């Protein structure tokens, strides 16, 4: 157990399932949960339906219906609208899906563990018939005619699609602040844990203007899961876009091995690094979702051929055979002391439980972010070439010439961040620069990947690193640096994993002195996602990360809701 000076909030008393069915959502938030309510016994009295597996059991037993679940999530989405987690709420679709799930449950044959369970999807996954914007003017109003493979797989399992979540434009960013629909607010800004600490520490500042960023770019998905508006959400992870907001929002963020999960339908950032990410409230849930999503997709030639079966994670009782590597290069000067100390504590925890914990070296780490920048922008330049206003998406009014139309369309459609990356990428790909930049970066990428291979070949099972430099910062603080600087800083611990194609998961460990979540990252061997998650699950169980308490949000933000209501009324 983590015993430290940080605000480690003990779980509140667990509520009874019947209580859950009666309580209002705000009450439900208040209730904590005991950590060992996973699939493992004992789990008699303590059920509060925060996790997929719990709610799945409740659905099967008829204690709650899919429609009830759906409506509660919908009402929560409305109540937390100011978080800006969702770009599109697919209420009608979700209710219809819930109705069908309900019929199946009544007949006694559900489609699986996700049948009737609300999920959310980042707005860069194509969803048939539902607008998919990438938070960009370029794709505003674009309704894909097909589902991304991962979306289809979730729907095939009966999951209810609540909506499409907010992000940085085309997933380029680390704050979820740079999309056309505005920034996502971190639900922890409104948590009891954070508010109490602030009252202690600060003099009466304007609370509302100090809301925190979620991290990004899958901030909408992280906030949606964190604020209980869904049970699991899809993010995407190119340089840390799933793990980073997961760490800031106190949820589990899994980046599977490259090639394990299909990218078909994911609007690409960097094809060679993109992976659909999974955001959940616990490691078991991430494993459940991964079991559904993983496997070969004939529509994505980079997915593995071997079949993957759904799996449940074993509960580790003995970690003495584990070897945990601590990469020394990840101890950077920018790392906050608090994250540093939690990282050490985590290492100590493994060691005290009998695991072998060793310092390892990933010598090319320092070149990683520059290398990532070159490769990322080059692929971005290429991938964004298709947005010319002809086949779909935004098209400018000008019709002087085709070239003028392209230029104006792209000028209007993309924000500065996207255009900046396109510009650098095209520079790196120029014939005269290709060898000096792109080819070199590819070579460095290989060295970085080899660093990991060498470490794993030396007997290390998983690597333990921080996910982020610090806890989430206020928006006002965050925007003092530009997107490029921020991305370079914030992806520091995460992007190397993408270049190597490895699986990694961010697990929330504890709250900072400010009452904000801090996550740590586990990195596994390629395609050893299950082993990685098994270790993460053991860790999760040890640290007993507290449930977010959002009671105050309801009170403090009631005025916000009122305003929203008025606004929507006046619009009609």
């Amino acid at each position, binding site marked *: 157990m983590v015993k430290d000076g940080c605000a480690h909030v003990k779980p509140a008393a667990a509520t009874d399932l019947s209580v859950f069915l009666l309580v209002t959502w705000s009450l439900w938030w208040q209730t904590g949960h005991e950590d060992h309510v996973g699939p493992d016994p004992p789990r008699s009295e303590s059920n509060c339906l925060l996790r997929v597996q719990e709610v799945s059991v409740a659905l099967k037993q008829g204690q709650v219906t899919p429609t009830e679940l759906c409506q509660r999530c919908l009402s929560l989405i409305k109540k937390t609208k100011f978080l800006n987690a969702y770009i599109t709420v697919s209420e009608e679709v979700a209710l219809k899906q819930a109705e069908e799930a309900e019929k199946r449950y009544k007949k006694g044959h559900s489609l699986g563990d996700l049948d009737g369970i609300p999920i959310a999807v980042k707005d860069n*996954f*194509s969803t048939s018939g539902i607008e998919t914007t*990438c938070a960009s003017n370029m*794709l505003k109003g*674009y309704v*894909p*005619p*097909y589902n*991304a493979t991962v979306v289809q797989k979730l729907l095939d399992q009966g999951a209810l699609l609540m909506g499409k979540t907010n992000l940085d434009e085309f997933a380029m960013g680390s704050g979820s602040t740079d999309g056309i629909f505005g920034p996502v607010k971190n639900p922890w800004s409104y948590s009891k844990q954070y508010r109490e600490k602030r009252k202690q520490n600060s003099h009466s500042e304007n609370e509302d203007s100090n809301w925190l960023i979620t991290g990004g770019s899958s901030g909408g998905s992280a906030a949606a899961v964190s604020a209980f508006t869904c049970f699991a959400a899809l993010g995407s992870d190119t340089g840390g876009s799933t793990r980073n907001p997961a760490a800031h929002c106190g949820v589990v963020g899994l980046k599977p091995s490259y090639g394990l999960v299909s*990218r*078909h*339908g*994911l*609007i*690409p950032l*960097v*094809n*060679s690094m993109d992976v659909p990410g999974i955001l959940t409230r616990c490691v078991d849930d991430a494993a459940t979702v991964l079991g559904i999503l993983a496997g070969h997709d*004939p*529509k*994505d*030639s*980079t997915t593995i*051929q071997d079949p993957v079966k759904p799996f449940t994670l074993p509960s580790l009782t003995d970690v003495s055979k584990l070897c945990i590597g601590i990469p020394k290069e990840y101890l950077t000067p920018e790392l906050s002391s608090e994250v540093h100390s939690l990282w050490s504590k985590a290492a100590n925890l493994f060691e005290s439980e009998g695991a072998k914990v060793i310092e390892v070296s990933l010598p090319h780490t320092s070149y990683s972010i520059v290398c990532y920048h070159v490769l990322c922008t*080059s*692929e971005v*330049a*290429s991938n*964004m*070439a*298709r*947005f*010319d206003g*002809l*086949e*779909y998406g935004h098209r400018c009014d000008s019709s002087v010439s*085709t*070239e003028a139309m*392209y230029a104006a369309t792209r000028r209007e459609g993309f924000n500065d961040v996207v255009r900046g990356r396109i510009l650098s990428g*095209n520079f790196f*790909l*120029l*014939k005269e620069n*290709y060898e000096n930049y*792109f080819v070199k970066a590819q070579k460095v990428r290989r060295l970085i990947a080899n660093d990991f291979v060498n470490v794993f070949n030396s007997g290390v099972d998983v690597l333990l690193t921080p996910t982020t430099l610090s806890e989430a910062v206020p928006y006002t603080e965050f925007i003092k640096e530009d997107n490029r600087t921020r991305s370079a800083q914030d992806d520091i611990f995460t992007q190397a994993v993408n270049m190597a194609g490895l699986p990694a998961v961010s697990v929330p460990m504890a709250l900072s002195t400010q009452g904000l979540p801090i996550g740590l990252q586990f990195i596994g061997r390629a395609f050893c996602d299950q082993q990685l998650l098994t270790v993460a699950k053991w860790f999760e169980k040890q640290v007993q990360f507290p449930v977010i308490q959002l009671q105050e949000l309801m009170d403090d933000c009631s005025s916000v809701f009122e305003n929203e209501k008025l606004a929507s009324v006046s619009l009609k």
Partner: protein
Amino acid sequence: MAAPMLRWCCPGRRFAFARVGCGSCHRRGPPTGSTSNGKRGQSTVAQQPHITAQKPRKGEREWAAVVGLEIHAQIASNSKLFSGSQVHFAAPPNSLVSFFDASLPGTLPVLNRRCVEAAVMTGLALDCHINRKSLFDRKHYFYADLPAGYQITQQRLPIAVNGSLAYSVSVGRKPSQMVTRTVRVKQIQLEQDSGKSLHDDLRSQTLIDLNRAGIGLLEVVLEPDMSCGEEAATAVRELQLILQALGTSQANMAEGQLRVDANISVHRPGEPLGVRTEVKNLNSARFLARAIDYEIQRQINELENGGEILNETRSFDYKLGCTVPMRDKEGKQDYRFMPEPNLPPLLLYDSGSLPPGADPQQVIDIDRLRERLPELPRVTRERLVRQYGMLPEHSCALLNEVGLLEFFQSVIKETRAEPKKVTSWVLNTFLGFLKQQNLAVSESPVTPSALAELLDLLDRKAISSSAAKQVFEELWRNEGKTPAQIVAEKKLELLQDLEALEQLCRSTLEAHPHVVMDLKRGNPRAINKLIGLVRKATLGRADPTAIKEVLERQLSS
């Protein structure tokens, strides 16, 4: 239409030109006897280019021309290179477009096995080295009919390299004086076709048809081993025949299934190569030859007049018969090549390297494809010469027309007539009729069996050759009658009644005493005149040898 303008060329790839004073380069000479035939794309190539060596006249300066080709052949496959859309020519616009073809965000390429096999087979047929590992790249440029903003191609490591293509050209006056030349094949790469832009100048708008977007192409790069339009056209023709024999491309130039870009430069022998121009979008072999020859002449004139050649892209204006610079994008472009990240390296195997237990659906075995290669045109021609004793140029002619060889072989199979006779009938009479009416072999009203039956009649001397021609004309009218029926109806069978023939001969001799006198005076040709008169009297139904026999007997008695 003017035939290929100049007959310069070309042993040793040297040209001799007069220092032409006239600025005009499109000298339109009278047709030079080149056998350009008809409008069909597959048959527009001069069958046997007559390449005449001309000695440089004194005081003239020599130029050598260097021609290399980039040929795009549409792969004959049911679906596109990276998507499941169907491939059809002339389907309604935008009816064969998958989400991937329209570059909808999030779609990914999935390689079509059939296209890979086509590339490997073509590579094998051209004696290429097949790369066991090849890679795909993105080539970027903005164009309205390129929806993704890039084309997926094989720039770094193509599927096949270092091959050769042999083709025959005739030199000198006799068509049978044929020389085999070889052009090196630099590489064969797989790539996507683009869509089509239709510019509506009236309404100043551009319409895009994406049916073609994403169809698999084989880009065959021929090294600059050619030196004139005829050589280039003949090499292309040979490649076309090979592709058709393999079935890897229909290679119909008129339908755009085979498109040729030519790189052309001139220099003085012994000096470094000159600056080259690229002539694009040559969609018939005839235009290819004309465009190249025009461009060579233009460059020479330019240099002779003290000008310089720009490294530029030009297009061939087939109406004016000249090349003109292309104004737009195609100038200097940086294509910003990049590896295609969504396609893993393409790995091919041979029987030695095939991983054990590999799913045959998942791997491509080069050796198995090699076993399945059909007979190639060169081998077919050699076989025809060997098997039927025909002249090499006849074997060429048989292969040059789609379906003609099959027609010939069917006739041979069913008739007792000599192969030489069959060859002559197929190449002269039958092909002549087709050309006259601009028909394809498949559209012929005369079936191989009918022709075989006719040749049988001829062979057993039931009819004369001239009667046979008549029967053939009847058959061509296609009234459903067999040759035998026509012969019977028209009373065309040879006179078998010797007595009647004797009678006719006697009356002919009596009616033409002066010819008989002539003969007796010692003019041996007079007998032919008599034979002709008797034949006329028999309405062509008597065998000249038999007539001659009877006449000689009667005259000597």
